[in-house]
């Protein structure tokens, strides 16, 4: 597309953002978004993409730089200011009020955008939008009852309702199924065809190439290239994203993984027998699940999200009480015991959500080290007194050995990128030298290299002798690292597969059962 004769809708000029603790998220980034185009903002996790669009949407203030909307300089003190200038952000994790209905959330946003529309008018607008864009949703449903994809739909409806001329989509496909992804990509194009400027953040090259006219690549906070789709070459984009050296390293990681020694399988480290677990609304989410895992083995649990995996994981880590059945870890029965019993047995836990579940936001990495090791025999705690010096040393060792990009152990955990957070979490759990490592979607939302590193670490740990239970929605990942895969469907283990895996059968078990 030739943008020479068009005036940009949104211009970011020399944007720099330095977070507390000295993390430079954006460095001197300048970018124009034109009407009628989809601009893909490509980059690995931690490249500064989310920070950049958060600045454009008024969520974060830049340390330096200027924002222009239709050529006019603006200062955003809040997202409301940005909304009133026609900028809408569809965040990676929907930011809706759970206790409000869909309609109430939409009325709220219409008011925030300065349109004093009542509930009836908004309902009518919603019906029109549903017809026009095919985004059907029950307006009376409470947000807490919606699936992730539906919540995202509400976020998109928010943008449409305020008739945003600039729509910023932050990693919108992370939690969507392939069919949902297709729909979203065509919707994105439709929005651009109507004359809106759309920014589509992704770390998936294929998506960027499918949806965008121009692709802007960010690396380590800087904008390294902007290429039009017709001139884009995959190898060139990859080298922009990672740098030549890192691509070489990545290839080596994969090669090395294939040649990694496997440990000797001996004792059963996890035994689950006829486990029944209730979900948050009282219904049985896990219905008689059974499995066995030996040391030095990676057992993958496959399944479409919402088939009881989360409840199963919560029961295994000791924060959800099973109604029936038995869990035994490293030879000790722990069915009715809490998470501290797992901690004492040296079980490593890598939960799905990094912030809030694996790390305490607003607290330092040292603090999070102590919390992670709280009930473990390797905790830097003697007679209830915390040895902060020892804790700092452990945190520093984790940062160094896992190459976590953080200024130091006193860095606020919240200020790290997703990949660095996860590396720190994995490092902390491996410090326990666990007999069993329980992980749920450990690479979700991570870029290719970060995900590869995490998988590499898991495999090394298995080679050391730990049994690893990997619950993941990413079938490719499971196939790559698991020795065995069980498929969970409607709360039951319905299929078990051994290497070499027959992917068709696994996929069939996931969808048909």
């Amino acid at each position: 597309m030739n943008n020479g004769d068009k005036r940009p809708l949104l211009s970011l000029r020399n944007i720099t953002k330095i977070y507390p603790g000295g993390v430079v998220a954006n460095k001197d980034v300048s970018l124009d978004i034109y009407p009628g185009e989809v601009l893909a903002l490509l980059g690995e996790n931690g490249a500064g993409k989310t920070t950049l669009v958060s600045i454009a949407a008024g969520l974060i203030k830049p340390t330096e730089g200027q924002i222009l909307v239709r050529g006019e300089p603006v200062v955003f003190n809040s997202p409301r200011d940005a909304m009133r200038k026609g900028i809408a952000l569809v965040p990676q994790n929907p930011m809706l009020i759970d206790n409000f209905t869909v309609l109430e959330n939409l009325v709220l946003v219409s008011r925030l955008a300065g349109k004093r529309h009542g509930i009836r008018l908004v309902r009518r607008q919603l019906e029109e939008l549903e017809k026009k864009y095919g985004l059907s949703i029950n307006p009376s449903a409470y947000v807490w009852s919606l699936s992730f994809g539906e919540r995202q739909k509400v976020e998109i409806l928010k943008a449409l309702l305020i008739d945003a001329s600039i729509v910023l989509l932050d990693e919108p496909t992370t939690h969507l199924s392939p069919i949902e992804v297709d729909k979203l990509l065509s919707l994105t194009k439709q929005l651009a065809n109507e004359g809106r400027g759309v920014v589509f953040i992704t770390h998936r090259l294929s998506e960027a190439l499918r949806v965008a006219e121009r692709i802007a690549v960010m690396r380590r906070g800087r904008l390294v290239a902007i290429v039009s789709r017709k001139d884009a070459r995959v190898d060139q984009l990859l080298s922009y994203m990672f740098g030549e050296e890192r691509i070489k390293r990545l290839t080596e990681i994969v090669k090395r993984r294939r040649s990694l020694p496997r440990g000797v399988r001996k004792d059963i480290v996890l035994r689950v027998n006829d486990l029944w677990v209730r979900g948050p609304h009282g219904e049985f989410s896990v219905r008689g699940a059974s499995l066995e895992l030996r040391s030095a083995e990676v057992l993958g649990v496959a399944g479409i999200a919402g088939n009881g995996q989360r409840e199963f994981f919560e029961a295994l880590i000791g924060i959800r009480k099973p109604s029936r059945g038995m869990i035994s870890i490293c030879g000790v029965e722990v069915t009715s015991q809490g998470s501290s019993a797992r901690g004492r047995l040296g079980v490593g836990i890598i939960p799905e959500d990094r912030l809030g579940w694996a790390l305490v936001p607003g607290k330092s990495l040292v603090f999070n080290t102590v919390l992670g090791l709280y009930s473990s025999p390797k905790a830097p705690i003697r007679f209830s007194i915390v040895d902060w010096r020892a804790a700092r040393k452990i945190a520093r060792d984790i940062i160094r050995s896992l190459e976590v990009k953080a200024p130091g152990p006193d860095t606020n955990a919240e200020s790290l990128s997703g990949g660095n957070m996860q590396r720190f979490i994995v490092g902390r759990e491996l410090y326990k030298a666990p007999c069993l490592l329980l992980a749920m979607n450990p690479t979700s939302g991570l870029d290719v290299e970060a995900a590869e590193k995490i998988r590499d670490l898991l495999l090394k740990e298995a080679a050391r002798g730990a049994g690893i239970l990997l619950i993941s929605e990413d079938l490719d990942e499971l196939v790559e690292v698991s020795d065995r895969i069980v498929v969970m469907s409607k709360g039951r283990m319905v299929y078990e597969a051994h290497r070499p895996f027959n992917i068709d059968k696994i996929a069939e078990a996931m969808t048909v059962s």
Partner: protein
Amino acid sequence: MNARLRGLVYGAIGLVLGLLFSVLVSMALGAFTSLGALGFSKILLSSLMSKDTWISALPYFVPIAASASSLALAYRAGFITIGAEGQVMLGAVAAYWLLYYVIEHGSIAAIMVAILFAGLVGALYGGLVGGLRVGLGVNEILSSLMLNYIAIGIVNYLVAGPWQQGGYTRTAPLPANMGIGLSVAVLVVVIAGLLLELFIVFTKYGVAIDSVRLARKAAQTYGVGIASTIIIVALIQGFVAGIGGGVLLLQLLRQLRSVGLGGWGYGYMGILAAWLGGLRPLGALAASLLIAVLYSMRSTLQLYGVSDSFVLALEAIIVLSVLAFTTLSIRRGEK
């Protein structure tokens, strides 16, 4: 500078700036009094600089500081009790009962036992709030408020009933040998505050308490008992507030009198001081001193003809300024 130290330093800077700002505003507002801005400023400054103001503030400092430092601990765990008022009162009742009716003499050991007993009763009262929250899911703000009213009822019943002496609704004063000096009283609560600070900073419970408030799921996942943390916090909070009540009785009150529905108010002032002190027991001690000084300045200023409501408004300005400046300063420190 590490994060913990930076928070304290920026908090202290904010405290000083807030005080300076509020004193300047107060001096300007003095124009609305009969003394005029200049006259009022003179009295305000001389009153603030006077040693007497600070010494006369110390008896109030004792119960406020005990409440504030203990509440700071509770609030750090997200346990928003307002029960210090009732715990201070029952602590005083417990100390009185043990010394006057059971031990009946005023040796150092007896006084120490009485103070510890006051703490124990406070702990049980605090533990009740924690137990209701953990066991039945009762909101701690409501249950602690109700328990405060029950404590007021207990005092009023005792002074008008079984413990009444003479024709008034009050108990007999404690004999002269059953008491402690002001310096001892201050020392007791300062040591208690210091121990609470060390408890938060150096024990694993400090990690548990912060995690329970900031990321309950993370706390649960890695083996922190949510229920046990809340019970421990509730017991300690009640214990320290109860000690405050015991010390208050032995140093200042000497006898129990009937109270109105608002209670003595020290526990409620403690809530303010806990937040002003940035939910740090040491910060809460400093904030308690500020509030106690303002409290004692009231009578001095009234002597000069400044109305009580004007003084109350000034107190509010000072408290708000300090809160605003400490918050701003700590945020700046985090940037």
